[in-house]
């Protein structure tokens, strides 16, 4: 796609700290931009209908389902995917907490879980308030996991949010 057209639009956005300017087809989903155009396959396609949360990414620090979000709407915004969590050798504390708490089994939901926990962490810091266990559970409701029974994920989130 070379220029603005009824179906494509030139947009500028940031992914994992790096600025991109791209022509994007108006009907393209954010998940397809992330996975197919940018090759960031750590974001997973679980259901494409906003039910499972495997495709969660951060939009300006808050978790969204990238399968329900049109790519053109990221213009001027900042996206963080799981690949943006770790810099070089150093992992983000959310990732470390998930590993150390045994919160990762098959791992297919893990990127989305990490994104949701990060989103809660940011919100909790902004509001200077530690969420209760019940609120953590509610905060993870949008992310399905078939392996872990969620307990170790809730524990990892609790560890991060109580810091």
């Amino acid at each position, binding site marked *: 796609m070379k220029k603005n057209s009824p179906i494509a639009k030139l947009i500028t956005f940031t992914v994992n700290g790096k600025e991109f300017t791209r022509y994007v087809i108006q009907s393209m989903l954010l998940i397809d931009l992330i996975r197919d155009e940018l090759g960031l396959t*750590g*974001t997973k396609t679980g259901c494409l209908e906003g039910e499972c949360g495997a495709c969660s990414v951060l939009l300006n620090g808050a978790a969204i389902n990238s399968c329900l979000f049109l790519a053109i709407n990221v213009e001027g915004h900042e996206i963080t995917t799981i690949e943006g969590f770790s810099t070089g050798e150093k992992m983000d504390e959310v990732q470390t907490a998930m590993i150390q708490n*045994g919160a990762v089994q*098959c791992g297919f939901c893990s990127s989305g879980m990490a994104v949701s926990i990060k989103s809660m962490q940011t919100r909790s810091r902004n509001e200077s308030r530690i969420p209760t266990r019940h609120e953590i*559970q*509610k905060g993870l409701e949008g992310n399905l996991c078939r392996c872990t029974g969620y307990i170790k994920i809730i524990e990892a989130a609790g560890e991060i949010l109580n810091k």
Partner: protein
Amino acid sequence: MSNEKMTEKLKVIGKPQPKIDAGIRITGKAVYGQDIKLPYMLYGAILRSEHPYSGFSIDVSEAKKLEGVVCVITADDVDCNNISYRKDHPILKKGEVNCLRDEIAAVAAESKEIAVQALKLIKVNYKPGHGIYDPFEALKPEARIINKYLKDTGQGKNISHKFLYEHGNLDEEKRKSKEIVSNRFVLPRVTHCCLATSNITADFSPVTKRLTLYSSTQVPFLYQRDMAHALKINPSDIRVVQVVIGGGFGSKLDMYPFEPIAAILSMKTCRPVQIIFDREEEFIASPTRQAMVMDIEAGIDKNGRFTFREANIVIDNGAYTSWGATTPFVMMQTFSSLYHVPACRFESKAVYTNNVYAGSFRGYGNPQATFALESTIDLLAEKLGMSKTEMRLINANFKGETSGQGLTYYTCGHKEALEMVIDKSKNQNSEFGIRNEKRFLFGTGYASMLHVGGGAKIYRSDGCGTRVNLDDYGHLTIITGSTEIGQGSETVLAMLASEELSIPISKIKVINTDTDVKPWDVGVHASRTTFVAGNSLLGAISKLKIKLIKKAAEILQCTIDELIFVNEEIKSEHKNNSVRIEKVVREIHFSQPNELCTENFFYEPSSEFQDKDYKGNVSGAYAFAAQAVKVEVDTYTGNVKVLDVYVAQDVGKVLNPMGLTGQIEGGVLMGVGYGISEELMVENGRILNPNFHNYKMLTASDVPNIHFYPIETNDSQGPYGAKGMAEAPLIPTAAAIANAVADAIQARIYSLPVTPEKILKALKEKNIKHK
């Protein structure tokens, strides 16, 4: 050495170890089937039937004309053998469809979008007929034959597989019975809900004539053989590369038509072809747990001892057969051998219908059998007027017992597990009973389970091969036949090796994904990997250690029996001198006669094949567990809240407490879903809820308190005493929930899931009776 002493000395085993593959999975670097992109790759899509039962003719000419479409196939374009162990399943259907999953055409195109568009251009002329959706209808003499491909097995019309098992004198035990109960239990279809949908990337090379399959199979070597049979090619020309698997739970035990379809498209186009299901397709076209109707009669003598059990089971097989039709192997164990019972008769029929077919699912029939049996035990206790816990305790399995079916329990923690959950569930841990409004009722339910814990000798070999290699720098590579599906087998293997050789886990690699590289293994199922692959690894390491110790004894000028492995060194306990393992490896490698530090070992469990009457000690060890569940029932809405699940399980020995509790918690929640929320609803062959919105998988908000108490019986057959454990936590949960609900509302639900509708209905009927 006593167990206590042995445990004291263990440095790695028994300590919590995060999964060694967690890092790549949590950073987005793991390559799942969805993430594979090969050069010049095409995207495949499958056209499935619009009707559960119909004749049809098909015209693909318009689809072929679409720009970007490279290949379109129908049954007329392929020369394949039928698949499934009954060989009753054509890969592409011709002229007639028998269930909603039926594949009638497939395309390969330059993009996913073009492939989907091409499917819409295929013209199909259907002539729908009256399908048979009830297995009891299919058993009637006037019913038509549903699956025309099954060779006559002599088992009866529309029966894919029949099992008949008996032990003891049923008539005599019936006479001895003080009380007998007889009930029908109905079990739903549920599905795996793997977060990663089914996927395959097939890559045929016209130059080498070899086929590489990037697959999520749980059984790579059986898959290789099945694929070769289907495609009429040589198994050795097929290389199976297992991608990172996004959930298995039994769903990847069979090969399904989409896999050979991708292979055929690749062979025809000489380009890689990828097929990935979307979520709706996953719900419709991946296998389910068996829906079934179970008629159970059981008796008890005046002292509360079980006398007999009789089970008659009709399983909805669906239109084709998968390994799931053999789940009665496991179900009959529960009826014949869970709690001591002098007589048992078990009969099951997997019956063809025009419904979607069932497959294998964690627990393999056992959650169904355990629900029916444990409900029956509660009913017997109520009828005899005996305590439900007491009745379970006096009939519990015991060490040294050989069951009527010939299962021998060299170790058995059944009674201990029961005592543990009975005792612990007395504690007040939660909201149990705190709401004293009349609206809320509280109840406690119990259930046990028995499952294989040392493999299952069903296939001609239940073994696993391992190759270990110590390199010149003291790093170990384990090449194992076994498969990682997220359950943590790589980590447990690395821990075992680390314990044995004193090499840190960071210096151990596990290679397990390529049939061209790894030694044979029957596959990941039957909770067998820790036990079988663990023993196989220990066998290989023990050979490696002999080689190392011989050389070390030369270097240290001492005898071999005084040498131990400690801190990456081989040390003489007497002389107090030592040599680095890596130095020993280099001495072996670089001095005459030159050798590498590599060893192979194949482990076959000591278990036996069952005879034609299904008798024999089929596993190397048996896992036992008991669960107690506390529930709150809202009598206004019928809603069940599972408050606490107490789990005590005989795991032989705790190897990795972190991995173990992960399996327990995941299994229990899957069991809670089976108990209260999950059902794939099917009406006249059509699936009504093929999405996560209407198929109720539980979320983080639904998690009960799970209290886990591992029981260590140190089985001499297991690696460091461990048994298989990963299916077990799911098996008794739904049964215990149903018993807890019955305890709360004083009325019983005879089917799963225990939904608000069923509870309100049961409450209403109870009130009518009392008025």
